[in-house]
């Protein structure tokens, strides 16, 4: 073993087994540079020992205790499954994933509506007139338009469905 291999052992001297210490001690007795490094480390560990005997203390323990007990009293219920879901939803990745899915859905709906309209040459005004914020109607309209694709070449499906819907909803 060379000096660089012993360097790690010197820094981790406290963690060495007795056998490892013996090998390291043997090297230290022969090697002046490693001995100097070990002496410096011992000195600095003594300084850290001294510094660590001074414990940081709370400025106002009573105030902190009241704060903790008050919050604990409000949240003293054990963690439920709902908390797990909530914390999952809180996760940044999940938030981004939901945003991406929403954006994809909006884009899909936009393309789906406008692309077919362009193909059929339906005026935008007509679409606005025929669109009601009722998703079940929208889906019915969509399915029927798929089924009658061949038949409705010359008829605007939106005006057709609008008249059909208005009879149903009235």
């Amino acid at each position: 073993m060379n000096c660089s291999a012993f360097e790690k052992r010197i820094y981790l001297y406290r963690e060495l087994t007795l056998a490892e210490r013996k090998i390291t001690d043997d090297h230290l007795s022969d090697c002046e540079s490693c001995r100097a490094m070990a002496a410096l480390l011992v000195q600095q560990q003594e300084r850290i020992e001294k510094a660590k005997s001074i414990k940081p203390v709370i400025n106002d323990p009573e105030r902190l205790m009241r704060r903790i007990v008050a919050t604990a009293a409000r949240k003293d219920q054990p963690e439920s499954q709902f908390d797990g879901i909530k914390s999952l939803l809180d996760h940044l990745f999940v938030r981004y994933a939901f945003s991406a899915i929403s954006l994809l859905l909006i884009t899909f709906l936009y393309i789906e509506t406008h692309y077919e309209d362009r193909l059929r040459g339906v005026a935008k005004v007509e679409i606005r007139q025929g669109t009601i914020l009722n998703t079940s109607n929208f889906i019915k309209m969509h399915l029927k338009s798929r089924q009658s694709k061949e038949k409705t070449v010359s008829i605007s499906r939106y005006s057709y469905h609008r008249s059909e819907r208005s009879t149903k909803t009235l």
Partner: protein
Amino acid sequence: MAESTSQEIIAQALGGSNEAIRFLVVQNQAFAYSVAYRFLGNSEDAEDIVQEAFIRLWKNLHKYNPEVKLTTWLYRIIANLCLDFLKSAYGRQRKNTVDVHPAVHHSIGSDELIQSNELNRWIQEAASGLTPKQKAVFILRDLEDLSVEEVCGILSMSAGNVKSNLYYARKQMSEKLKKYYQTSDKIRTI
């Protein structure tokens, strides 16, 4: 606090006793704060972490395993909260907000106290250059005097990983301390 007493108090706290909760906080908050402060270097953040640690302790008290010491469990909660804090953007931004005059517990004379205080603050500053993991092993092993096995359990790390981080942490701290003593005459007598 004796572990048997601790078990009784935990049982009472689980039963909803506010007195038991208060007792557990009184018994452990000083130690919890001291650990959090060593990680973060300022009292404001340390108090926030201590508060959050006790809330988590409460929420998970029903999962408490009596074979693990309550302090070990608290160490684990605090260390993980501090690691998350240090890794966060906010924590990185707060990295250099070390208290200028930290409140400390002491049993030595005032001159020596000023010098030790200064060294303590300097150790805090030097440790802020370590990676969060290096800092965690340095604090738990060298400042809190826990065994390697305890550190492994608290940080969920292998012994090899703990020792490797400890080596880099000690090496860096040693180099910084050397520079500090070369440039400062004030605490040369310590």
